[in-house]
């Protein structure tokens, strides 16, 4: 890896060029590039603004160890802004949710629940609300096959494939009309 070589040769170069040795701490001497021991670098796209900067996600032992700009990209040529450069912490962060949290009606606390339980319950609630609110025809007799009692709102850091399934499942499948997105905002 190019970065690794440059880092490793730094001190030697100074010596070879005959410059006066600078006082360097032991910590600095032992420092290594964060990406040095990566098993692989996986191409990704920055999750923040819409410029579409390409990133390289460095993985070691199935864990992300760093995220950097991809120098190959004609869009960002390896650069990232402060947010893009902080993407690592967006993913690797002790504050992240990793379990399903559930709050029962009128309850004053979250509870952890199994994912499969939550999925079953959500599906049942959607069916219940849809069945209770579905309108086949308007009072004038027009066929509308819709429900306005369920709404979805999607963020714009979702993949196009995910958006496509929202529209397909909730719109074409369930008859939900209020399917909206950050793109409206």
């Amino acid at each position, binding site marked *: 890896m190019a970065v690794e070589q440059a880092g490793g040769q730094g001190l030697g170069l100074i010596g070879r060029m005959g410059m006066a040795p600078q006082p360097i701490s032991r910590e600095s001497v032992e420092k290594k590039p964060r990406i040095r021991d990566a098993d692989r670098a996986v191409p990704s796209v920055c999750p923040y603004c819409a410029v579409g900067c390409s990133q390289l996600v460095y993985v070691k032992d199935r864990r992300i160890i760093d995220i950097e700009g991809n120098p190959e990209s004609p869009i960002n040529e390896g650069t990232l802004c402060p947010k893009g450069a902080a993407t690592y912490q967006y993913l690797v962060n002790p504050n992240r949710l990793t379990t399903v949290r559930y709050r029962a009606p009128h309850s004053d606390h979250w509870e952890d629940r199994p994912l499969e339980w939550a999925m079953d319950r959500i599906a049942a609630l959607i069916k219940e609300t849809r069945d209770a609110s579905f309108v086949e025809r308007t009072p004038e007799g027009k066929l509308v096959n819709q429900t306005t009692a369920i709404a979805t709102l999607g963020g714009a850091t979702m993949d196009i494939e995910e958006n496509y399934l929202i529209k397909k499942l909730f719109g074409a499948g369930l008859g939900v009309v209020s399917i909206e997105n950050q*793109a409206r905002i």
Partner: protein
Amino acid sequence: MGSNMAENHPVGFRWPMQAKERGATIIHVDPRFSRTSAVADLYVPIRPGSDIAFLGGLINYVLNHDKWFKEYVIAYTNASSIVGDDYVDAEDNGGLFSGYDPKSGSYDNASWAYSGPPQEAKEDASAHTGHGMEGTSPAKHRPARDETLQHPRSVFQILKHHYARYTPEMVERVCGTPQSLFLQVAEVLTRNSGRERTSAICYAVGWTQQSYGAQIIRAAGILQLLLGNIGRPGGGIMALRGHASIQGSTDVPTLFDLLPGYLPHPAAFKGDDTLERYMRESAVRGGYWSNLPKFMVSLLKAWYGDAATAENEFGYQWIPKLTGDHSHISTSAAMADGKVKGFVVFGQNPANGSAHAGLQRRALTQLDWMVAIDLYETETAAFWYAAPEGWKPADIKTEVFLLPSAGPPEKDGTFTNTQRLLQFHDKAVDPPEDARSDLWFLYHLGRRLKELYSGSTNPRDQGLLNLTWDYLPGRPNPEWRIKDEPSDEKVLMEINGYTVADGKQLPDFERLKADGSTACGVWIYSGVFPGPEKNMARRRTRSPDNDVNPEWGFAWPGNRRILYNRASADPAGQPWSERKKYVWWDAAAGKWTGRDVPDFPAKKAPGTPAKERGSGIDLHSGSDPFTLKADGRGWLFAPSGLKDGPLPTHYEPLESPLSNALYERQDSPVAKRFPRKDNAISPPGDPGYPYIVTTYRVTEQYTSGVMSRWNSWLSELMPEMFAEISPELAREKGIANLDWITVSTPRNQIECKALVTQRMRPLRHDGRLIHTVGLPYHWGYKGLVKGAMANDLVALSEEPNVYIQEDKAMTCSLRKGRLR
């Protein structure tokens, strides 16, 4: 204009900066002196909400000083088209165009149509408007034209008349921009446009979040067409969109009024009772939209598979029909009134990030259930115990699910960036514990619902039961812990489209058919996955000899990087200049060629005459570049497609300290207000709310903060909410830098620290000093750093074409001290 690109699109801004190093001039027109202003060649202050007056002033300057690009304008725009006798311009009617009905607050656009012999057998389908359909409705008549542009009802003369009063003096009066600065902009822009040079205009939500946002962009479109800056390298109007795939969410879309690929969503009130009627009303005889039936039937085949047959209208009736405005803002109002029972929120945070956030939070208390899916606990998920209203959880009935989701490196998927470029991101690791991709959630939710409804013979359930839903991979990738993850590429292949008979992926949208033999999820994306293992969004090859880089990702449509690039060549098909050579006609080979994929029929020669009969782009000549338009021309005047007028006209924002200096009509006659007790809007010049307030973002935080305020690095860089005010206003109110202040609108009030800077500059209007207050909107009540929410101050309102709230120009009051 309407963008702080250096701050909000920093890496994209590298390119204007590199252009500057090579001699380009950067102009920044903005209410605040920002990071972009600091590196621009020319900073030009402007009052929030007055962009159309400024752009109209430039249009007037271009026309008056004879600076328009004559060959381009005559050949490529509708300047020569003649508008019907019944048309009355806003200039002659107190700011209203003909066709206005004050009772319904809407326009009938019949009188805006071109004059000329009636076209055979085609009704006006102008009812369909909104994203992307602007300009796709057919003109009622084949236009009569006067290429001398002298006819008093020619578009050119109407344009001249409409903008004649938008003088530099008027610009100064309305925008607060000193005339000398305005004239410098006009001179730089006109000097830098023509055969040899092009200018680009960049904008962002500073334009769209106004009650006439679409018309501001239209005004830029008129200016750029007059200067010959559309369809050419270095030209254009660039929407700087704010989120990684917000373009994708618009294209696919998750918007209520559209089906994938900008097909209008069927609506009961438009009379879309049958598929045949919907297609007849929506298709346009002239131009590429004549193919709409192919896109629509292919979409229905993609969704309902074998169950979609000619006999059952390909399942058309299973698609719900709209019965009104189901936009986010309208739905929020309905939710606050208890009419919405269930709400699914994917990576979104309305309790903080949407207009009138206090009303949004109250709306959540009215739900029976809510599902929030995110990487972090959002203000929306936590409303029941953490909202500033201090509700008792015991009083709130809403059943809340908060599901952990996955970030881009934890799943395969595609983003569409602001240049319409589809880029694939590869899965690098599994998401932690129970976190899953939204694709996983949707697939398994759909699977469960299909099971719950299985066996139902109720007609209303057949759409769901017939949905094609085969997305599990043939063999799960052994590398991953999560074994039941659906195959993202299977979904992308459906989006691309395939031949029904053999399941083979389609090479492009030209192959789509209206007879049910092809299926295609999003027609504009067709070509992204043209064969097995051929994921074009995953291409990552640079082209050293072509700065268009056609092999990096995939741009829709058909990998074309500049839309309407036929206009980069002259009517005869030759480049306007060697310097601006891009796409041209190769006579020897008998086809269009160049650095980009030509956005034009490959073998249609420049001299091809327009056909008189038939449909589609055959009705366009070989020199009509705007293939999606009914008449093949760039529209200076929009005879249909917009709900608020054929020409951009200056109105004041819904809340403004000033009266409209140009017209009797104060504000947009068709913008939607929500006259509710909890949504008061200040009247013009309200002395109780004398200052303008505008919202914005900073580099180090991100929208409502969910993706940045849980991040210690970013939170440390930008830890605290503030209101930015000028030293003049601070003096007037006795406020020192970092004092606590309270900012109020009739909707709500918030407290934060004052940031007193010279970046905010009061502007003089008719001798009166008008102050603007700037508010970032990144903070909330969850996260590592917390603070007041600017969106608490915003009203529910809707721009009439695209239903976006106005938060870039409101009025407020301000006082020293805290809330209590």
